[in-house]
């Protein structure tokens, strides 16, 4: 704001007052920011404490882990603990198993979810609304109800102790992902479909040339959530898998906890390593997550 010499004195004083109150507001604002930052930093430190403690323990010598008062940061970090953990437990094997399950499930989701959601979002047909509601209601069906009949079925088919029970469902579309993707596709303007149609694209051409490339954020959610869920899944692997060598990392870790529960320095190292893939995926994908999830709020 500039003061012009020809302005009346009254206007000048109003301007001065405005400037002063703006300055006061700025100070209050800055103080507010400092308070918020202080709160956020202490909360963040509190939230990271369990992870910090795990990392710290993983670098300690065996005699240090039960020492009192505990050492916050080990004086001589024992990086060799990690090599020892990998040598002692088949961690690499378990993580590879988890990776195989994750990749298969992601492929299943990426193949099935866009097609199904495209059907819900773009076509009119009898019972569509009823089917959509049915699909939504299956989101509320807890997974445990399936376990006994499916175990029986898989046993009949000779699939117990293979990865099929842990992979097959992904190829039939997870209802949460279908819902998310349907909502997302509805936000893509239909003009784009029409333009492609005029260019001679059929229904599937539109899906693969227009819809899927524009659905990146929603597909990112599918990939990241599938990764996290499958990597962390515990109940289904302990039911459907028998052979130790085929265990995913979640079951492998729990299994070792029962047998070597005193070697906490190795154990915390193994646990830390087991979460690194998830953290890496999360760090790379988080930018897209909010955009992909935002479509939930749109009423269907």
């Amino acid at each position, binding site marked *: 704001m500039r003061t012009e010499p020809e302005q009346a004195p009254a206007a000048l004083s109003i301007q001065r007052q405005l400037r002063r109150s703006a300055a006061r507001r700025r100070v209050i604002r800055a103080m507010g920011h400092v308070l*918020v*930052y202080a709160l*956020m930093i202490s909360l*963040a430190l509190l939230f*990271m404490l*369990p992870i910090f*403690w795990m990392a710290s*323990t993983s670098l300690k010598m065996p005699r240090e882990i*039960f*020492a009192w008062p*505990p050492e916050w940061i080990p004086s001589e970090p024992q990086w060799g603990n990690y090599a020892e953990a990998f040598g002692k437990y088949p961690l690499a094997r378990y993580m590879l198993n988890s990776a195989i399950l994750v990749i298969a499930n992601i492929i299943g989701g990426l193949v*099935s979810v866009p*097609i*199904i959601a*495209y*059907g*819900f979002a773009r*076509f009119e*047909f009898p019972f*569509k609304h009823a*089917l959509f509601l049915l*699909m939504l209601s299956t989101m*509320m069906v*807890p*997974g*445990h*109800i*399936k*376990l*006994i*009949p*499916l175990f*029986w079925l898989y046993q009949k088919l000779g699939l117990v102790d293979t990865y099929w029970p842990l992979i097959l469902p992904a*190829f*039939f*579309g997870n209802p949460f992902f279908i819902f998310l993707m349907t909502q997302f596709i509805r936000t893509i303007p239909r003009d784009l479909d029409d333009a492609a149609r005029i260019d001679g694209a059929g229904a599937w051409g539109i899906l693969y040339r227009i819809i899927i490339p524009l659905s990146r954020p929603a597909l990112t959610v599918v990939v990241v959530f599938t990764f996290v869920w499958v990597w*962390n899944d*515990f109940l289904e692997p*302990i*039911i459907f898998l028998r052979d130790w060598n085929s265990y995913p990392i*979640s*079951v492998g*870790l*729990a299994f070792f*906890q029962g047998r070597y529960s005193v070697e906490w320095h190795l*154990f*915390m190292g193994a*646990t830390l390593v087991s*979460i690194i893939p998830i*953290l890496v995926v*999360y*760090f790379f994908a*988080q930018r897209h997550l*909010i955009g992909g*999830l*935002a479509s*939930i*709020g*749109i*009423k269907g």
Partner: protein
Amino acid sequence: MTAQERRDAKTGYLALSPWMAGFLVFYAFPILATLYFSFTQWTLVDRPVWIGLDNYIRMFTRDPLFVSSLKATTLFVALSLPLKLVLGLMLALLLNLKMPGMNVFRTVFFIPAVISGVAVSLMWIWFLQPDTGVVNTLLSYVGVQGPYWFWDLHWALPSVAIMSIWKVGGAAIIYLAGLQNIPAHLYEAAEIDGASKWRRFWRITLPLLTPTLFFQLIIELIDAFKIFTEAFVITKGGPLKATYFFLYYFYEEAFRNFNMGYASALALFLLVVIMSCTVFVYRTSGRWVYYEN
């Protein structure tokens, strides 16, 4: 129907066919089969023997484990769900402030939510060790004798609840998506009208966030009822069955004792409980969930 409509319907059904097949195999068949098995005695190796309502009679009249596991699960839901919903919203409001560096905090708070399951359980066993754990060490600095957490009859269940609240960032991120959907012009209009921040929260933010809140309530409710891994890894349901949650009981009946018939009755009961809660929330939603248009 015109030719175009018929073609649309055909493509639509074709697109939905994987889901419809999946619905039959992974939802319809298992639910109906579980219903049937719940009226039988069956150990998986022999043929199911029809015993009518016997499983249900046993469940409701003479099964102390059914009662105690149901109690533990209800208590866990009652402890963790409201805290998670309220704290999640508070955290989301903080994270939604337009200040530099907020995305770093967002990342930090969401980390616990992505590493759930066994890894978190193992980390927390170590974190809450009665003698050498961090929490009790810090408490001892201020002269407080910390409890035995997972190893104390009365503290075990609250400890599991605290651990689940650590994952509140997952709820916060969903709220955050909802917050970012609220049109900015509403706030601008309210500010011009001189509405205070507090008033803006109650009159704009909260009403427009109710669809997200509703979604969240249902998801978290179902999730809380399914608590299993933490109890299995940390406490083995103890001490004295204090954390012997319903799903754990179901798992042991079905896949340890192979009482498939009785376990089916338990599974169905949990399904009915979860569905009733969901339907109840859904029924009341007309009164408190606000939809634009």
